[in-house]
C-alpha cells in the first residue's frame, strides 16, 4: 500500500475564495428563507465543493 501522508495538497486560492463566498452566501440565504433542512444543506455544500474540485481537475 502506498501512503500519501507526506504529500501536502496545494489548494487553488481562487477556488478557495470562491467556495468561501458561495458557502457563506448559501448559508445566509437559507438562514433567511429556512428553505433547506440541515442534511439538505450539507448535501448542497458537498456538491459545491465537489464541483469546484472537479472543475480544477478538468
Amino acid at each position: 500500500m502506498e501512503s500519501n501522508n507526506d504529500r501536502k495538497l496545494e489548494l487553488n486560492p481562487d477556488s478557495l475564495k470562491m467556495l468561501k463566498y458561495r458557502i457563506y452566501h448559501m448559508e445566509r440565504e437559507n438562514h433567511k428563507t429556512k428553505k433547506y433542512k440541515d442534511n439538505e444543506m450539507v448535501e448542497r455544500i458537498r456538491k459545491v465543493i465537489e464541483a469546484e474540485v472537479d472543475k480544477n481537475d478538468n
Partner: protein
Amino acid sequence: MIIKSIALNNFRQYKGEQPLILFSTDKEKNVTVILGINTSGKTTLIQAFKWCLYEKASFRTRDVINIEVAKTMGLYTSQEVYVEIVLVHEDRAFTIRRTQKFTKSDFDKIRTEKSVLKIQYKEDNGEQQAVPSYECENTINKILPEALSDYFFFDGERIADINNRGDVVAAVRGLMGLDVVGEAKDRLDPNKASSVTAKFSKELDVGSDHKNNKLKNDLTEAQTKLDVLKTRRNEAKDEIEYYERRKEELSAQILANKDEKNNQDKKLSLEKDIAQITKNIENIETRIVKDFSAGGMKFFAMPLIYRALKVIEDAKYEGEGIPEMRPPAIDFILARKKCICGCDLSKNEGARENILFEQKLLPPQHLGTALRNTKEIYKRYLKENQNLFDTVKDNHTEYRNNRNFLDAKTDEMKNVSAKIQGNIDVAKIEQDYQKNEKTLKDKRDLLLKISSDIGATEREIAEIEKTIERLTIVSDKNKRLRECIAYSKAVYEWLKVGYDKQEKEVKERLLESVNNIFEKMYHGKRNVTINDRYQIVLMTLLDNDKVSTDESKGLEVVKNFSFISGLVDLARQKAHKGNGVTDDEDIPVSTEPYPLVMDAPFSNADEIHIKNISKIIPEIAEQVILMVMEKDWRFARPALEDKISCRYTIEKINNSDTNSVIRRDL
C-alpha cells in the same frame, strides 16, 4: 429596513379607514412622535406592526376587528380589517398588507377568515411586482426575522425585561450576522459526524475492508461521542446559566428581605428567651413551694415574733432580776438564813434586805425577768429562722424579676411579630440559596469533566484521522476526496477564525457602545459591563474596586435602554461599514439599518433620565418612532424637538375606549 408609513382600517380602536401615518425617513430629523393618553391606542399601534408582519398580537381578546364595527354589522355583511406597511429594505420599497375578513353569519356570531398577506415591491425600473403568496413569509423573514423583531418593536414592559430574556445571546448573534457564520461553521466542522468534512472522510478508501470499516466505525463513533459531549456541554452551560440566574434572584430576595430576616431572627431569639424565662419561673415556683412546705409556719410566725419582740423591747419596766432565778429559790435562801455567798442573814440585816429586794423583782411581783427571758427566746428564734426568710425573699425577688423580663420580652415579641410580613420565609430562601450553590458547584464540576472528555475525544479523532491519512491508498477517488476534505477544512478554518474574531469584536464594540450611551444618560460613579451571556450588569466604583450593585427602577430603565440602544447603534455601524466580500480574510457579515419603535419608553424613568434618553435615541438609531405618554412628553420635548419631522396625537372619540383617531400635528 426603514418604515415609510402605516395604514390602518378597523384595527382594534382605529375604527374605519385611518389617515395614512407617515414616518420620518429624514436622516437628520429622524424621529416620529405619537402622543396619547392611557388606553388611547399607542400599544395597539405597535401591535399593528407585529400583526401585519407576523400575524402576532398580544391582545386579551382574540379578534383584531374594531368592537363598534363588529357590533353594528348587519346579518350576512362583511367587514375588512387591514394594516398596510410601506418600508424600504436594501434600497427596495416594499408594500406589505395583511387583510382579515369578518362576516356576521348569525345574530350573535361573527365568522373570522384566515388573514391574507400580500407583498409588492418596486423594481429598479419602477414597475410594481407582487411577491408570490408562498414566498411572502420568507420575504418578511429576509427583511426582519420574527425572532429579532422584539428587539426593534419595544413596549415599556419589554424594556424592563430585556436582561431576563434567555434569547439575548441568540439575538445579538443574529443581529450581527454571526448566527449565519455559526451555522456554516457547524456544517463543515470535521469533528461533527454529520458534517460535510466528516462525510468526505468516511468515503476514503483505506485498503482492506476490515481495517477500513474498523477505522471508519471508530471515527464515526468518536465523532458521535463528541457531538453528544458537545450537546451535554451546552446543556451544562445552560443549566449553569439557569442556576447563576437563580443565585442572583435568591441573593436579591435575601437582600430585599434583610429587615424581614432580622425580624425573623429576632423573633426566634425572643422565642428562646421567653422559653428560658418561663422555665426559670417554673423552677422558682417549685423552690418556693418546697420551702413553704417545710417552714411555712415559721415564715408566717416570724413577722409576729418581730412585732412581739419590738413590743417587749419598747416596754418600760424598772430593774431586772437575776436571770433564771425563781421565787422558791429566794424563799429557800431566806428560810435557811444563809446567802449563797455564805453570809448569815440573821445577823446581817443589809444582806437580808437585798435578798428581799431580789424577791420583789421576780414574778409574779415583777415581769422584768420574764420579759427578758422571752426576749432572748424570740431573738434566738429569729436568728435560727433568718435563712428561711432570706431564701423566700430572694426567691420572691428572682420571681418578680423574671416576671418583669417575661412581660418585656412578650411585648417585644408582639411588636416583632406585627412587623413580619407573613408569607416570606427568609430562612427557607437562604436554604434554597445554599442548595443552589451546591448544585451550581456540581454543574461546574460536570462542565469541567465534559470539557476534559471533549479534549480527549478530539485527540482520539485526530489520531484516527492520522491513521486513515497514513493508510489511504493512492487512487483517483481518494485524491478527489482528499481535495474535497482539504477545501472543506480550509473553509471551516476560515469561518471559525472569522467567527471568533467577529464575536470578540462584537462584544468589545457593544460594551463600548453601551457604556458610551450609559455615560450620556447617567451621571454618577457607575458604569456597565456585559457578561458572557450578553447580560448587562451595573457596576459601581467602591474603594477602587468595581462591584455589582443594586439598582432603582429608574436606573434599571436607563441601563436597559443603554443596552438596546447599544445594540441598535452597533447594527447601524455595521450596516454603514458596508456589505459584501471586501477582503478574503474577512467574513462578509452584513446587517441592515433598523428602526427603533418604542411604546412608552419613558415609563418608570424620572425627569432627568427622560431628558437624557431623549437626547441619545435620535443619535443611535437610523429611524425612531416613539409612542409617548403626554405626561412624559413635556420632559422629552426640549431634547427631541429639533429631531422630529412628524408628530401625531391619538384622540379618543367621545372619550371612548373603542374609537380612536390619529391626528397629525406636525
